[in-house]
């Protein structure tokens, strides 16, 4: 299945900002994170189509996944 993956802040270092990716069906967020070689503790905030997800969230065709390291501001 095709996905659009967006990375932010320090996660972009050595990777990418935004990328269309091809993943096997039945993939979870955790599989994607492993594939991108992102440390689990560095994937603090995950959105799937703008809704909060977690490592166990199941991905589907055409999803947009955004991954952030721990961040704060205000």
């Amino acid at each position: 299945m095709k996905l659009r993956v967006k990375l932010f802040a320090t996660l972009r270092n050595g990777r990418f900002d935004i990328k269309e990716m091809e993943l096997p069906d039945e993939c979870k967020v955790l599989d994607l994170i492993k594939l991108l070689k992102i440390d689990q503790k560095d994937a603090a905030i995950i959105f799937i189509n703008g809704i909060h997800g977690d490592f166990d969230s199941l991905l589907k065709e055409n999803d947009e996944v955004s991954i952030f390291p721990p961040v704060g501001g205000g």
Partner: protein
Amino acid sequence: MDKILRIDMGAPGGPKVKVDGLGSYAGLGGRALTSMIVATEVDPMANPLGAENKLVIAPGLLSGTAAAMSGRISIGCKSPLTGGIKEANAGGQPAQVLARLGYAAIVLEGNAPEGKLYKVYINKEGVKIEPADDYKMLPNYDLIDKIKASYGDKVACISIGPAGEMKLSAASIACTDMEFRPTRHAGRGGVGAVMGAKGVKVIILDDSGLQNREPKDPEKFREANKKWVDGLRSHSVTGTALPTYGTNVLSNIINESGGFPTRNFKEGKFEGVSAISGETFADIETKRGGNPTHGCHRGCVIRCSGIYVDKNGNYLTKQPEYETVWAHGANCGIDDPDTIAMLDYLDDNYGLDTIDMGAAIGVAMEAGIIPFGDKEGAINLIKEVGKGSYLGRIIGSGAAVTAKVFGVERAPVVKGQAMPAYDPRAIQGIGVTYATSTMGADHTAGYCIATNILKVGGFVDPLKPEGQVELSRNLQIATAAVDSTGMCLFIAFAILDQPETFQALIDMINAFYGLNLDADGVADLGKKVLKAERDFNKKAGFTAAHDRLPKYFYTEKLPPHNVVFQVTDEELDSVFNF
């Protein structure tokens, strides 16, 4: 810090200085002190610009000590913007210097006769007040240049620009930073207008010959401060994210969440976000020879700020905060960092709240005064404020007034104060804080974004009403306490996640004052402050009807999630049940 400096600006024959003991205010600092003085001494029915109002300037309990992060200052009064009690908080150097000078607070009382303007100079010898006619209508940067020429750059200043002198209700009070620039503002609620009404252009603080304040138990204090700093450095938000990208790291994440208010709160996502994100700003600052990691005061170890330079590498402004980038960016449909930085500079120079200015321009754009996305037009509107034209004075009075004057129904304000950079429909917890805070719409009063979006201190689903009241209540109590310590609120990211870091903060206060405070004691202080503020507002005429969002947030769906604000009135009315 065992005295209160009172200056009666309206005394017959000119300003009169009086130094008081702390009396019943002993043990209070920052917001606790400003709010207690205002609640005790100002008639809630007073006109905010009248002689009965008081402007209270107070460093925090730990300001002027070696404690890291302790340089925040609280400025309180009855607000000309909201008509309720106000505490506006700023960084910069003044808190540390004022605390070292030994003052727990400066209280400006009475109003100088119309047309009179003064400067106040304070050093270890005492207080000198002189006419400042040659400073009249000077913007903040020009003012500070003049002061540098006469007093050097080792002093710290608290000043107003033309907006404060014109008593506009979105006027801020500027505090100078480490480079002696007027970049750190007590922005909200029109505190600058009250300083203008008092007739004080600038307070110059000189701590030469003075040392840090000494703790009662230096050994324990040093130990606790070390644990404190270690805790802040090791937490990923305070140790990495904030120093690297500053507060504007939020643009992307709030946009992804669908709660990034765009074009006067019409949509929750901005197509131009990437051009104005914290990642982009940090990149520009590095490439042009600015600096993305910089503290707003000495002793800050998080250093969320930075220096923004123009295309030629010349200083333009400090790194604009997330709120500013959003207000002048997405909210106005503007996706150009240089324009946003220029607007930040102009706001600082004229002495204006960047949030209410961005919101006012958004409203003016909706009214068709200029189109959304008009960069030049936005800059010109702020320049109008500096000129004091009628149009400028309307904009400079904030979003609520601008909406009234131009007949715009969609005014994103609560208690007259503009909402900051989070749409309460897509992030419902912050909506509870906006609606119920004693300050009017204010994100810092109970920063539910931490738990709704950033997963700090747990997680509460931002799109649902469940759990939001409790979240906002607890954060409002904790914030009222933190605001009293002089600590920067960004320490909250570390103390919400790391109990040992919270303990280190309590240990520091105890070691400094020889107290036995515990976590419950800290919460009790927060509750006491909130109760005094609520009580003041009630006597000033606020009812449950004022603790609501504007109607359209309950009826107009916000894309992309197509949600409305769902927390019920009954729930909102239970926030202060403690």
